């Protein structure tokens, strides 16, 4: 019996030791799995963005792009995020929506900018989307929705238009998993605090939009695809309480108002 116990113990130990020893080797870099994923992501990002560029109108008004850029720059600097990795695009559309595409493309609809009462609210949404990018949620979602084989074949030249359109629709108008959304919210609060932006504005924005949700559901894509907005705003406020920081204004009111005026003009045209 004693011999048996020793033998079973040795067997288990041998297995785990072999595993542990082999795990010391960086197999991921040997097999280049990271590189392959990065390349696929890069190609997919460009592919999706090209489609949006062709079908939608990009807003290139200097006051709008400068305002958004300033916010994104400040967030990136404060959180040590490579600014070049985030490619911001503003699309002229009356839907309140913002979404991330593979390879760091961040698409913001003009209605979202117009419906933000202050730069802090907008920063909250931007931080949330940057969090999705930084936490690699976009690619994870794609793998889950369409599968790795479709992604690789799409990125390597098999351009099935229907699949690409469907995938793009999934990215722009469906939420991530509940867990991933919460993770992005919490990360967004960290980003906001590091940038010295009061995260309560982000919670308020969610609360405000969820209140008007029923009235204009059609145009509130970002809220309707992110369920339980009130619950989210609640846990954001809870999380904020733990953080003690001195908050500052991220933009001056003059620039913000100028952007809002220009947005109104662009909508009228």
């Amino acid at each position: 019996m004693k011999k048996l116990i020793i033998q079973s113990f040795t067997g288990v130990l041998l297995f785990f030791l072999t595993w542990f020893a082999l795990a010391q080797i960086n197999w991921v870099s040997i097999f280049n799995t990271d590189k392959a994923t990065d390349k696929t992501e890069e190609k997919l990002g460009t592919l999706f963005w090209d489609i949006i560029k062709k079908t939608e109108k990009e807003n290139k008004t200097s006051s709008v792009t400068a305002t958004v850029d300033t916010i994104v720059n400040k967030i990136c600097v404060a959180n040590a995020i490579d600014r070049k990795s985030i490619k911001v695009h503003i699309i002229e559309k009356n839907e309140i929506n913002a979404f991330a595409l593979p390879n760091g493309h961040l698409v913001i609809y003009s209605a979202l900018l117009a419906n933000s009462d202050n730069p802090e609210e907008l920063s909250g949404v931007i931080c949330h989307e940057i969090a999705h990018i930084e936490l690699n949620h976009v690619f994870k979602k794609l793998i889950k929705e369409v599968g790795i084989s479709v992604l690789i074949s799409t990125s390597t030249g098999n351009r099935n238009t229907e699949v690409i359109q469907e995938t793009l629709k999934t990215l722009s108008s469906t939420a991530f998993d509940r867990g991933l959304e919460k993770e992005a919210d919490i990360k967004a609060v960290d980003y906001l605090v590091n940038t010295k932006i009061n995260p309560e504005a982000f919670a308020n924005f969610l609360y405000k939009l969820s209140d008007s949700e029923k009235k204009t559901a059609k145009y509130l894509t970002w809220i309707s695809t992110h369920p339980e907005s009130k619950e989210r705003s609640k846990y954001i406020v809870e999380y904020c309480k733990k953080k003690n920081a001195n908050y500052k204004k991220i933009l001056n009111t003059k620039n913000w108002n100028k952007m809002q005026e220009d947005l109104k003009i662009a909508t009228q045209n």
Partner: protein
Amino acid sequence: MTQTSTFSYTPGEHEAEKASNSYLMSLIALIAGLPLPIINLIATLIFYIGNRKGTYFVRWHCTQALLSQFSMLFINSFGFWWTISIIFTDETITSKYIAYLITAFIFNLTEFIATIYTAIQTRKGIHVEWWFYGSLTNLICKSKQ
């Protein structure tokens, strides 16, 4: 890994064939059931049930073949579900995962070679006791006499 020893009696030709088949069963099932590790276990279990009333030599080797599948079942099932989670959830391929696959492969290969060797030896009527499984089988499988 394996140890040849003398059995309590010399098995007959028919017994040797049956005992050898219990190992072959797990080999065939291994090939057929590669993606689903449970198949190996089911195959050897069916063979074990079919021969549990057989002679001591046959019963002994059926038991050893069955027991040897259990540890492989754990190792392979873990690897199988880990792979599934990588394909269908947000798990990613890590060095730990690749190391696990290699370890599982080494253990499977060792078991595979040992199974072939034992199948050949038992066919000749030679009694082969595996490291750990042999002692465990001695504990479970007793002669009726």
